[in-house]
């Protein structure tokens, strides 16, 4: 069960993930990010405050964009991760590859810094 909301704030695309991301719902996440990229956003914020669980397939979605973002100079910052979700990211080492912030304001600060 997943619900994904997108809204724009200060030129950044905020993708809010509500629910759990497993193998089947990871496709929706992939689509949402692809859409954002397709619309030409270079600042993507992912609101994970309502993300309850993420499976390896969901992590794979974030991972699969790393190279593409680097090429297109797109920045993505995740914020509001619960301890459990953050731990999942950490174990896989994704925290080394992705930008993860505590909250929205911190995320915005990071993304503005990245996009200078």
């Amino acid at each position, binding site marked *: 069960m997943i619900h994904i909301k997108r809204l724009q704030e200060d030129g950044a695309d905020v993708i809010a993930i509500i629910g759990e991301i497993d193998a089947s719902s990871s496709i929706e996440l992939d689509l949402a990010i692809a859409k954002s990229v397709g619309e030409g956003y270079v600042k993507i914020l992912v609101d994970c405050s309502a993300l309850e669980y993420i499976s390896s397939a969901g992590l794979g979605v974030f991972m*699969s964009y790393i190279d593409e973002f680097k090429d297109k100079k797109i920045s993505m910052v995740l914020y509001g991760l619960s301890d459990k979700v953050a731990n999942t990211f950490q174990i*896989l*080492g994704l925290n*080394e590859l992705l930008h993860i912030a505590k909250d929205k304001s911190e995320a915005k600060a990071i993304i503005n810094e990245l996009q200078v």
Partner: protein
Amino acid sequence: MRAKAMIRLLFTMGAITWLGLVFTDISILFSTVNNIEPDIPTWLPKLLLNLFILSLFYYYKLKIERDEVLNFIDLLWRVFATGLIATVISLALRLVSYLLGNTKLTGHVVYIDLIYLINVGLMISFLTMAFTAWKRLILYQKSKWLLRFWSFFEYGLLISLLYNAFNFPYVESVYITLFVAFLIAGLVLSGNMKWVAYLNFRQKWTGLLLLLLTIFYLLYGFYTNSSYASTISSTSANFADYRYHIFIMSLIAFVTIYSIFSFLVILFNLPTTSVFEQKLEEVVNFQRISQSIQTEQSEESVYNILLETSVSTVFADAAWLEINTSEKKLYTYNITEKEARDIIEHLSHQPVRGILDQGTDKTRNLSKYLATLKSSRFRSILAFPIYVKNENIGMLALLKELPEGFNREMTKIVSAFSNQAGISIENFRLMEEALQNERYKEELKIAKTVQKSLLPEILERDEEFEIAAFSESADEVGGDYYDTLRISGEMVALIIADVSGKGTTAAFHMSQMKGIFHSLAQDCIEPSEFMARANQALVNCLERGSFISAIIFLINTKTKLIRYSRAGHCPVLYYKAASDTVEYFKDKGVALGMVRNSSYRNFMQTSEFAFAKGDVMVLYTDGITEAKNAKGEEFGYIRLSDILETAKKLSSREIQDHIISSLYQFSESESLDDDYTTMIVKFN
């Protein structure tokens, strides 16, 4: 064989009784004419005549009634053929008489009687044949009552034979009563003409001709025989006069009546034949559509059959079928694609909502909108949507050059056709899906066996440590992997890995991991170097979004040092006996395949620790920590470390059993969603 022998026997009996009849009848007649007391009883020819009739009756009964192959026209043909033979022989005899001229022989009563008896034999044969054939026709689609009535009629006729078999005195009132009774019964039975409806136009014409000739033969036979009979009776009454034979007379009446009725009914049915044929064709077409899916193997054939049958059923001049599934297609009949597109285009500009597109939810007669399209030769159009699982997948349009060319019946039947086509396509898709599922299941089975075969059956043993490992996969195959390898006398390599994703691809990547482990670990390289090279090898074959988490250990039993590197795998749970503490190792590392260039090296580190007697190292996959109970809670890291805390003193096997039983107890179910694997190393 028995039936055949029976037929032959009856035929022979017929021949013998007829010969007997000829002999006795002539002899009696001769005696009577010459005023001599006949030495043969006068009832004998009558009895022989009845026996002859009976033989023929059962002869045809066996021959015709049992023959399942005969159709209606065949039956009529048989009757006609028998009549023809009878008439031809009779005419030939007439010719002989004519050629002989008016001699003493031809005028002699014995000669006339002989000719008469031959004619009677032929007529009886023809009548019984026709009677049997008519029986089959009358009893086509019989009801219980009809069958009873017929049996009553048939047995009544046979019993009436008794009346003529012996020398009962002729009583006119009895004779008339019986005859009238049989006549009425015959008339009532002649109302059964259901078979006529099943003849097609051609067959009806054939039937008419055959019946007309049959009636002619009947009249001819009747006329011939009565003229002979009256000639003989003018000389003597002592001969087998069929005119007083109730059975023969009733038979003549019945056969003639039914023949005339059939003739008339067929004649009057001729104009409506096409309607009946059309209805029959509709049924056949309907069946074609519903069965098409079993015989043909594609949706396309269903579309083609739908188009074809609809056109032929409503006599449309042209038609098209527009399919709006993933690949848009236009099937046309007698119309060019451009013409069809023009009409679709034209109609889309008309003030009617959603014509010929997915929006239309019911059959529409759009003819009035067509009137404004001057360039088109068509004046009537009817459109039908085709639904598969409540989704409109296309539109069938039928066209006629005539204005007002479609009626309500046509609309109904084609509507039924398009519905059936939708059902057929739905069935077809369901079947495809089922097949796909079956294939998928089969694939999973293969993957599961592959996966099992990749795990080692025997693990390395050493005086310094003992290892227990366990792996169980859920219904879906995962890619959990563990292995051990002795590099040298003092060096042993361990690995645990988890491939993201499931199914065959996961099992395939797992086998790659095994290959990488066995080739790279052999060289006793640094663990971080191992991971860097493994990543290099894997990035090219791991699809986007897939990765492998792993930990590799190099155990040196001599120095009692372990060097390891963790690539995104679940952290090592370690019990240190010296300090009596249980903790998860904190270190960094990114899963294999996540960074697809040489910078991966930068994310990896090699850690080192010393082991001592009593230490326990627990390796596991996320299937264990992420196992959920009914409340949705995860098993988690704390429960796992708590178990180690309580079981730390046990052997590696016992610790493993402890973990697994706790896991099942926690999840309260027999099956788990994910694969789970543990590898427990206890140091001695």
